[in-house]
């Protein structure tokens, strides 16, 4: 593990991400990560709120139209997240909270998929084989909102809880 971290921190990509004075390097990647979070977590929250009864005039099925933008946010964050990880691999991988955050984001996206399959108005789920009761769907929406809040909090706390910044630290 240590040898891998040492190698990663000697790569050119790592050097550019953390060493470049360009705003497109580390600051730009951080900014993209925040924007992607806004769209992924925010649109997921909007879908959850719809499931919970907000904006009842919006047909459930139509909330699916926001999924491409939600997934765009997710993929922006997958890519920017990997770049941030290449920038500070030791800082993240030696912090247990980082794995908690990854798990929470993963769980949140699984919930996005499960909920989005149930977005229907006539109880024939789009793309799902088993329809779900409205009560169960509402619980999934609450779980989704909780997951995102926890994932965002965990992500923010990464800046305060790391023990090693680099492999030689």
């Amino acid at each position, binding site marked *: 593990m240590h040898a891998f971290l040492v190698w990663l921190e000697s790569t050119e990509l790592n050097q550019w991400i953390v060493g470049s004075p360009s705003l497109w390097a580390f600051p730009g990647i951080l*900014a993209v990560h925040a924007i992607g979070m*806004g769209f992924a977590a925010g649109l997921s929250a*909007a879908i959850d709120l719809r499931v919970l009864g907000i904006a009842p005039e919006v047909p459930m099925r139509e909330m699916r139209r926001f999924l491409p933008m939600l997934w765009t946010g997710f993929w922006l964050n997958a890519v920017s997240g990997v770049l941030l990880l290449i920038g500070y691999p030791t800082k993240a991988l030696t912090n247990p909270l980082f794995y908690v955050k990854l798990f929470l984001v993963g769980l949140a996206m699984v919930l996005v998929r499960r909920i989005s399959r149930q977005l229907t108005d006539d109880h024939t789920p789009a793309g799902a084989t088993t329809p779900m009761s409205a009560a169960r769907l509402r619980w999934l929406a609450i779980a989704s909102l909780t997951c995102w809040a926890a994932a965002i909090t965990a992500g923010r706390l990464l800046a305060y809880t790391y023990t090693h910044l680099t492999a030689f630290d």
Partner: protein
Amino acid sequence: MHDFQIWLVTSIRLHSPVAKMMHTAWGWPMAESLHFLGLSLLIGSIGAFDLRLLGVAKRVPLSAVHRFIPFGLLGFAINITTGLLFLLTEPDQYIYNRSFHLKLVFLMIGGLNASLFYLTSWKTVFGSVAVYKAPARARIIAGISLTAWISVIICGRMLTFFRPIPCEPHPTQIVLTCSP
């Protein structure tokens, strides 16, 4: 502007009621977490309505998607509150920060732009007949809204990279972007 900025930083430092709370172990990290939650709520709700105005989910009346806006305003309120906590704790880090100045400009654009939407399109969008196609002006406003809020996020994220450094003896900028 220099005198005003210096006065602002000094008065906040003298009277700040929240600095003590923010300097506890959990104060700053929790305020930051809430700031990011508020950001997501704002982008998710206002962004969803902007996307609807721009043509996403064409089969849904504009006014129906507008029901998410109160949650965007909730996110905005959370972020004004937590933002003020940061500002009132470390005033010099924001008042002399050029990224913060730019963030305020984009915040004002976002706010004025939203008012413009209600001034120009209220009757069209919230009339007795459901409207599915936003007028061209409302679509332009939606584009400006998305751009402004994304720019606010970018400027916020850039704050730490524009931390003010100590000023040269006689700074000539109109707005101070260094620490006197």
